[in-house]
């Protein structure tokens, strides 16, 4: 089957730049314009921008903690009017089914769930398999489990840590590794209430820094394409910019990705001792080519914060709105906290909003800054269209700023920053760069050979509307969205690495689980068939 998109403005910073040209698809894959062939299907996309499908590298879309948040907050998504449901369960608010539809309608075709606890991998993958249309991936959480911490304490070889990391990534079908407040969840179980980069975990005597550096090295040695994904210590605390700065300095020539940097952009100035350090952090990021970051932008309204940073979530209980929370001390790297929260346009909310935008605008290289709200922690991903508008229009920022707390905004540089993202920069930040960061060579661009994940947006003055309702979206060449509505249902895949398990490590894991949990290893692992969909996974290669 041959499909042709005619007359659009193609924006593809990787292959061919920006120009008016046709895009050709054969059997789900992009091809160079064929000689002397006629397309079976032609779409007139004049007046539209044509980009690769967008990729979200950090959005909590499925798994145990997300599901617990649903359980805690049934009222959060109760009052929607039914729209005509041309696709199954797409009216079910905050369901996996709706998640896939809403992402697709905005032109997103790949989304990474960044916090999969290894022991609950099956649950996570069951949910992801029920997210239609888009491709998914997960990052496996490491760095708080007794096995890792014991290896480090006992000075075991780095090869053994590599074998363990490879076994976790392979058996949980992850695309990468994330470390969340390294060591803090283990320390919290020992009643430690605050934890910084050079604090040590009781029992193990290992510092948070040592955990991060060891995992960073292991991920690099294993050739895992995505650099270690780090959720730093001290999230959300006034003065956390120092922690972020220390972590940025700790890259030491090896790549590191820092998640939701906005939540660390805080200093201790001002009457409320809560100020913006975004300009300082942006400078540090600009000066360190080994670091990439995503923002975790705050937008206003009700949300539910979901995090495996159990220590931080426990300290946030007092701010819960409404007043109900779940705090879970999980096995190993599991657990976390669910704390409902309402971002108000008050001093704190205004400052957080501005810090995120400052980071977006002051970090100069769109290849190293990623577009996220840390869904749903800073805002639900459905706020993306408004966020695109804020980045692309200084006027829109001024208009919103006028509604917000002036004292807070005066402690930021936001008003003086007039940068506006170009469409090319948006294409880098939300397509090309995420594909490169995750090691996904087959997407993020529109060059021949890439899978035909394409988002077509009708150009207009209303930037938010343009990105809220894609004119056309193709997933692997299937037309799935027309005029902002899902028109065709299909099932994407979950992208995973598949490093071969080391035999001695498997034996070690069997013994470990038998001894410490009284259970055989098959309680913690699962075959692909447990997902009950045809070929639920697609393999991504490690770097050699």
């Amino acid at each position, binding site marked *: 089957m041959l499909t042709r998109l005619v007359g659009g403005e193609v924006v593809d910073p990787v292959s061919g730049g920006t120009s008016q040209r046709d895009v050709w698809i054969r059997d789900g894959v992009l091809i160079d314009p064929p000689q002397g062939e006629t397309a079976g299907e032609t779409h007139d996309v004049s007046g539209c921008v044509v980009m690769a499908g967008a990729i979200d590298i950090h959005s909590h879309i*499925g798994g*145990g903690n*997300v*599901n*617990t948040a*649903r*359980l*805690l*907050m*049934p009222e959060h*998504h*109760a009052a929607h*009017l*039914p729209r005509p*449901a041309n696709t*199954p*369960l*797409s*009216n*079910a*608010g*905050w*369901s*996996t*089914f*709706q998640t896939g539809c809403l992402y697709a309608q905005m032109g997103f075709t790949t989304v990474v769930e960044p916090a999969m606890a290894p*022991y*609950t991998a*099956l*649950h996570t993958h*069951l949910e992801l398999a*029920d997210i239609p249309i888009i491709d998914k991936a997960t990052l496996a959480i490491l760095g708080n489990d*007794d096995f890792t911490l014991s290896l480090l304490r006992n000075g075991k070889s780095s090869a053994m840590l590599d074998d363990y990391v490879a076994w976790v990534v392979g058996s949980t079908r992850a695309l990468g590794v994330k470390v969340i407040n390294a060591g803090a969840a283990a320390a*919290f*179980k*020992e*009643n430690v209430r605050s934890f910084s980069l050079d604090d040590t975990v009781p029992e193990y005597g290992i510092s948070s820094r040592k955990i991060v550096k060891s995992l960073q090295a292991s991920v690099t040695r294993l050739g895992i394409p995505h650099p270690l994904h780090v959720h730093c210590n001290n999230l959300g605390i006034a003065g956390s910019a120092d922690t972020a700065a220390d972590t940025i300095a700790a890259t030491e020539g090896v790549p590191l990705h820092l998640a939701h940097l906005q939540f660390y952009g805080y200093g201790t100035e001002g009457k409320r001792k809560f100020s913006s350090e975004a300009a300082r952090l942006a400078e540090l990021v600009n000066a360190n080519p080994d670091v990439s970051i995503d923002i975790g932008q705050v937008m206003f309204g009700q949300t539910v914060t979901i995090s495996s940073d159990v220590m931080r979530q*426990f300290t946030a209980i007092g701010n819960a709105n409404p007043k*109900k*929370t*779940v*705090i*879970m*001390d*999980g*096995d190993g790297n*599991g*657990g976390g906290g669910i704390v409902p929260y309402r971002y108000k346009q008050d001093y704190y909310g205004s400052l957080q909003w501005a810090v995120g935008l400052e980071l977006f605008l002051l970090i100069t290289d769109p290849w190293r800054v990623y577009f996220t709200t840390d869904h749903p922690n800073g805002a639900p991903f459905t706020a993306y269209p408004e966020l695109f508008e804020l980045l692309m229009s200084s006027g829109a920022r001024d208009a919103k700023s006028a509604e917000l707390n002036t004292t807070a905004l005066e402690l930021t540089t936001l008003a003086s920053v007039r940068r506006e993202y170009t469409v090319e920069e948006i294409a880098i930040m939300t397509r090309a760069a995420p594909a490169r960061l995750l090691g996904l060579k087959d997407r993020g661009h529109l060059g021949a050979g890439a899978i035909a994940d394409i988002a077509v947006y009708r150009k207009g003055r209303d930037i938010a509307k343009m990105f809220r309702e894609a004119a056309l979206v193709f997933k692997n060449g299937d037309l799935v969205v027309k005029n902002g509505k899902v028109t065709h249902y299909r099932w994407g895949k979950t992208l995973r690495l598949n490093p071969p398990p080391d035999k001695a490590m498997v034996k070690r894991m069997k013994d470990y689980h038998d001894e*410490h*949990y*009284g*259970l055989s290893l*098959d*309680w913690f*692992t*699962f*075959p692909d*068939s*447990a997902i*009950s969909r045809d070929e639920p996974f697609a393999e991504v290669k490690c770097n050699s």
Partner: protein
Amino acid sequence: MSVAWIGSQPVSLMDAIQNAAKLLASSRCPVFTLDTDVHGTRSAIALIERLGGAYDHALGDVLAKEVTLFTDHGGMFTTPGEARRRSSLIILVGDIPAAHHDMLLSWAGTQPDLGDRGKRTWFHIHGEMNAAAKLARQLKAVSLGAEGLSLGGALAVLRAQLQDRQVARSLGGIEQFRKALAKSQFPVFVFSGTSGDAPGLAMLQGLIADLNRKGRASSVFLPADDDAWGTALTSLWMTGFPTRTGFSNSLPSYDPVRWDVQRMIRDKEADLHVWVSSRGGETPPRGGTAAVISLSRTEAPASGAAVTIAVGKPGVDHDGVAYSSRIGTFRALAATAPSPLPSVANIVRQLANSLPGRKALPC
């Protein structure tokens, strides 16, 4: 051996499917009682959305109580694995269902290898009547209770005493408990939906919150029934809501009173009851005016059912995925005695394909 019946007559599977599909298509208000694994539940909910029906679990009342603890309150929890490894002080709360006794007894033979690593001691806080007395005896648990007090009352007294507030009467065992608490770095309260009423479960979480002001403590939630809890979790990701959810115009709503399926049958709101049970040995409750379709692990037609179709049991007749409270998450089950009996999902898919429109289900 027959696998499908219309009334009490054995028929071909195809005839039973056609007949059941007709009943589904003509029903004004179909309600479903679910009691199966993740994949059976997924397919059933997809069908229920299409039909505009409502669903509940066969153990809907106790499950609703467990769900309410989360929807109304929340709390602090840990896993059985973490409790086994880290907790030297375990407090059983009220009645713990028999299904969990083996696991708890197995902990008694182990020593914590994390945290304070102290020798494990057991307490049992309870109301007057307690069926868990045998378990408590086997574990040599110290009794925390007082005559005339309900479990909720005992928890309230314990909470007050631990805060050094005046109480009208003290709990037996309290001094021993204070000593144990002072020694343990990670005390864990083990409870279930069968432990007590909803305010009692909330009171327990209040007590745990108090203990976490200065030290650490948590709870292990052992569902009254693992499969029921698994159904609630599956329902959550599929619809955003736990069980006792209904659809109108493909919009789900959650209402533990309105969509209490047994109530709907009693009050004659439902005209068709689909009983989905792969547990084995369970039959749809009699009574009411609703017609009954039974998909169950059976060798005989369900008495009173318009249509009965035999299904297999996940983890026995075919592979499956079920919630396991031992690990606090889902577990893949391999068939232990593979048989040709179809899965619930298989039958539900055939039903969907026999409905007008013949659209395939999303799962």
